[in-house]
């Protein structure tokens, strides 16, 4: 089984979010970038398929040379080879287009992406990729088993979950549940050394036209200080929620 894991290179959750150039660009100064958490659950599940079902696992990312440490980390965790599409990730649709071209080339049976990235939270790349490849698609996926060309996935729905039966080729929008947080792997020294020797292929490509354009960013208005209510004055809390906040 040939498996591709899509990796988004995103600011760590604890990053301060600021903008530059007249609030038109994200300010990366001092920002630590990591593997998108939803992608990391998928990558870890992919390692299980590699170890138990002899899958080969490639990882792919769209971005400049600055994203390579993130791909090397994925190699250190255990992926076999990495692909970097040398292009700016401007929106979900252009990223999906770049990924689809590389995925067609590689003839993958299973592609796992995160259900959404933690920077733009669009949740659009896996679905668009599936539609472009005419592959089956399950998102918000919390469990995945493969048996030959058959796949059984569990999708989180509003208020519960559903079990889905489908066939390869398949694109997954993965999240926590594919593996648990305690299953995530921290690369060890041997993994890091081996990752240096693993292939990282850079694909040059024509620039895709984006269908959307981020014109400007703004930050929410600063929040006022919390209004504290005494624990024995519940009436006051109800009064505030009813008359001031008007939410009950």
């Amino acid at each position, binding site marked *: 089984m040939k498996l591709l894991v899509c990796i988004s290179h995103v600011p760590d959750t604890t990053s301060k979010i600021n903008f530059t150039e007249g609030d038109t660009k994200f300010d990366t100064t001092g920002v630590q970038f990591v593997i998108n958490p939803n992608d990391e659950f998928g990558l870890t599940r992919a390692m299980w398929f590699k170890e138990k079902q002899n899958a080969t696992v490639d990882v792919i990312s769209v971005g400049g040379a600055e994203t390579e440490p993130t791909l090397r980390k994925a190699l250190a965790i255990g992926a076999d080879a990495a692909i970097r599409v040398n292009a700016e990730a401007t929106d979900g649709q252009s990223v999906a287009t770049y990924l689809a071209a590389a995925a067609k080339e590689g003839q993958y049976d299973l592609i796992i992406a995160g259900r959404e990235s933690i920077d733009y*939270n669009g*949740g659009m790349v896996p679905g668009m990729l599936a539609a472009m490849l005419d592959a089956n698609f399950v998102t918000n996926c919390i469990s995945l088993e493969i048996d030959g060309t058959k796949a059984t996935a569990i999708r989180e729905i509003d208020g519960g979950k559903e079990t889905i039966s*489908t066939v390869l080729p398949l694109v997954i929008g993965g999240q926590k549940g594919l593996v648990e947080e305690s299953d995530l792997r921290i690369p060890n020294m041997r993994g890091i050394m081996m990752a240096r020797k693993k292939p990282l292929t850079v694909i040059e490509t024509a620039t895709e036209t984006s269908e959307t*354009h*981020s*014109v400007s960013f703004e*930050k929410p208005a600063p929040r006022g200080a919390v209004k504290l209510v005494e624990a024995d004055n519940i009436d006051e809390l109800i009064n505030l*929620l009813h008359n001031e906040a008007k*939410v009950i």
Partner: protein
Amino acid sequence: MPVLVYTESDQGKFKKAALEVASYGKAVAEAMGTSLTALTFKVSDASELGNYGVDKVLNINSTNTFNAKIYADAIKQAAEKENATVVILSASADSRYLAPLVSVGLSAAYVPNVVATPSNLSPFTVKRTAFTNKAFCNTELSTAIKIIGVSNNSFGLIENKAAAHIEEFSPSLATSSTSVTSTDKASDKVTIADAEIVVSAGRGLKGPENWGMIEELADVLGAATACSKPVSDLGWRSHSEHVGQTGKPVAANLYIAIGISGAIQHLAGINSSKIKVVINTDPEAPFFKAADYGIVGDAFEVVPKLIEKLKVFKAQNA
């Protein structure tokens, strides 16, 4: 060239998010000087949509259960039939599953997490959340057809009388090699996605046996229940209740956090809720910096009193 909204239903009953996208769609249609069409599946009485500005309803009766590929194809064909230039969906799990597929099918730009009506129609510009609710991004859509995903509770329900003329729609739909084999869903509970109020609790509750008062509080408020990540990791509550960055996002009008310290990953997921209340014994808990109202106190004393007082309040304001 009307606006098309996908109005989701469950057992023939419209979800609250469906009425919200209809309300939003009506505002967009008015700004564009056009009419509003809604697409429904297996709805016998769609007249409720007429209260929220829907002029015409296309109802599909042929499909059985939800299938993303088939439903996305139906939305695409409805948009083509109506010559719609704007297609609007909600932020429900199903709508977010469908929208990227519809986007590719219609070669249409798609922007999710939208929190307001378009600030400009040419170029078509909308405001969406970004960086897990730490910022907003004004985004232009440059394709002929535009797809908008409206964030929960961002627009509200706006009444607007319209005809809601119902037409049966029977397109020839795509086939799919994907099928749902079983569904596990509590039918009598308010879902986090559809809730205006969410009551959430954390490790401060000490054990799953203490959730009775959380469920009672939610019941009094007509709210959904949720929990923090450690609580779902410990198996005290199901993963589907976990809210936060790696769990479900919450965009409620009121979010009540009980015994949750407020880790940055938790706050990232609930940030777009309008009013936040925190109840915690520790006055230094980070949640107090993110909340609108707070009580420093023991949940086991505060929550039962809150339930009692709310029952009185509800009885007086019924």
